[in-house]
């Protein structure tokens, strides 16, 4: 029995490491890629998938495999910046809302409701357009629209903790508010926070890709999954399937991996299921 539980934990940990490894490789590979590799080459226009061009080439003879990697790498950077920013905002707002209460709580709750009430995509497009599109606009818009749900989770968690018996008992045992916050509250908030952070990632990447696809995000010459997919729409009717399929699958794999990492971490850190 004991051996079995240990094994499962190890298996999950190895799986998470592999997933992280894959994502880091894509990230670094794209970051340090020679731009010539996905440069224009009119000699090989619209070549199907073959040995030299694994994912084929597009109408300007650019190698789709390298463009995909570079595009995903860009997406990862935007996703990382956006979700870290969002989660820090959520952490500060959530704790302030729960601890200070009163007017602060009301204002933050109103802001959360406002952000959640508007359709996500509309808000993204608005902010991105206001900031002049491009990578700056897109990063800001994704960062500014993903904090509300995590804020709610953090606020709820802290509110519940504050009134719990063990926190009150710790206070009567002479523990200072700071000690209580660090020893009692952090272990509860941090897992929820980190899982929220990881689960924000696929959201951020998907939204980045979708507004770029719609033409409100990154500009055409930047290799990005959204740009690649939106360009491929022009060729898909003429049978150039590889332009859409491979980048689509790559995006899907990255998103699913992040989602899986988040979900497994959730299971691993939850005492109810942590020892299963």
């Amino acid at each position, binding site marked *: 029995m004991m051996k079995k539980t240990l094994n499962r934990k190890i298996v999950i940990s190895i799986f998470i490491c592999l997933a992280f490894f894959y994502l880091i490789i894509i990230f670094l590979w794209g970051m340090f890629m020679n731009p010539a590799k996905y440069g224009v080459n009119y000699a090989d226009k619209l070549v199907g998938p073959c040995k030299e061009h694994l994912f084929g080439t597009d109408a300007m003879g650019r190698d789709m495999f390298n463009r995909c990697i570079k595009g995903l790498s860009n997406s990862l950077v935007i996703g990382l910046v956006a979700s870290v920013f969002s989660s820090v905002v959520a952490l500060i707002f959530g704790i302030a809302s729960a601890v200070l209460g009163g007017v602060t709580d009301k204002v933050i709750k109103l802001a959360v409701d406002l952000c959640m009430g508007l359709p996500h995509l509309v808000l993204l497009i608005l902010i991105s357009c206001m900031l002049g599109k491009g990578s700056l606009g897109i990063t800001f818009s994704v960062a500014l629209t993903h904090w509300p749900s995590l804020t709610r989770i953090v606020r709820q968690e802290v509110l519940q903790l504050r009134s*719990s018996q*063990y926190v009150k008992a710790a206070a009567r045992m002479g523990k200072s508010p700071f000690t209580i916050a660090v020893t009692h509250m952090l272990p509860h908030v941090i897992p929820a926070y980190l899982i929220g952070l990881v689960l924000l990632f696929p959201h951020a990447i998907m939204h980045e890709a979708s507004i770029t696809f719609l033409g409100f995000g990154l500009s055409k010459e930047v290799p990005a999954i959204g740009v690649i997919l939106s360009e491929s729409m022009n060729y898909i009717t003429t049978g150039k399937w590889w332009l859409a399929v491979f980048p689509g699958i790559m995006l899907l794999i990255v998103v699913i991996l992040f989602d899986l990492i988040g979900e497994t971490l959730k299971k691993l850190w939850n005492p109810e299921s942590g020892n299963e």
Partner: protein
Amino acid sequence: MLLEANNITFRYTEKSPLILRDVSINVAEGDRIGIVGPSGYGKSTLAKILAGYEKPTSGTVTLDGAPLPMKSFCPVQMIYQHPELAVNSRWKMAKTLNECWHPDDFFLEKMGIEKEWLKRWPSELSGGELQRFCIARALAPETKFLICDEISTMLDVITQAQVWNILLDTAKERNMGMVIITHNLALAKRVCTKIVKAQEL
């Protein structure tokens, strides 16, 4: 040492009805005062006020004439009815047990706490097992008064007997004062030196 509650009046919010009206109670060292009575008479509220968890609307709680310490370890400790709510679910039991003092092996054996439990999460122990931890945690050497709010209600009869034997032994040994809140008159008669009815408070 003397724990005194003088003319305690309490209501949760300004509009809610009075829960306690002019309640006074004195607990001296070695006293075991039982408070029995039906639900809704403010027994638990009084327990919380005595241990400093709630502030009375009017009246004072004093320990040897001075107010209860709010910043340092309070010599008046309280044990709750629901042990599973009184321990941090993300702490292993050893951390919970050692939160304010370090019980030695002899003490743990006396409490009926097995060494192996220390490595477990609270969700892996039963209510009775958890309650032993809560009691052990509250029995620090500095504890002079113990408020027990229905601490054995959810335990089976054998565990109840064990828990009370341990508590009474320790209380007598250290000459602690106790306030025992219970629905069970038979239990109160057995363990208390004096019984107060909640209706008469």
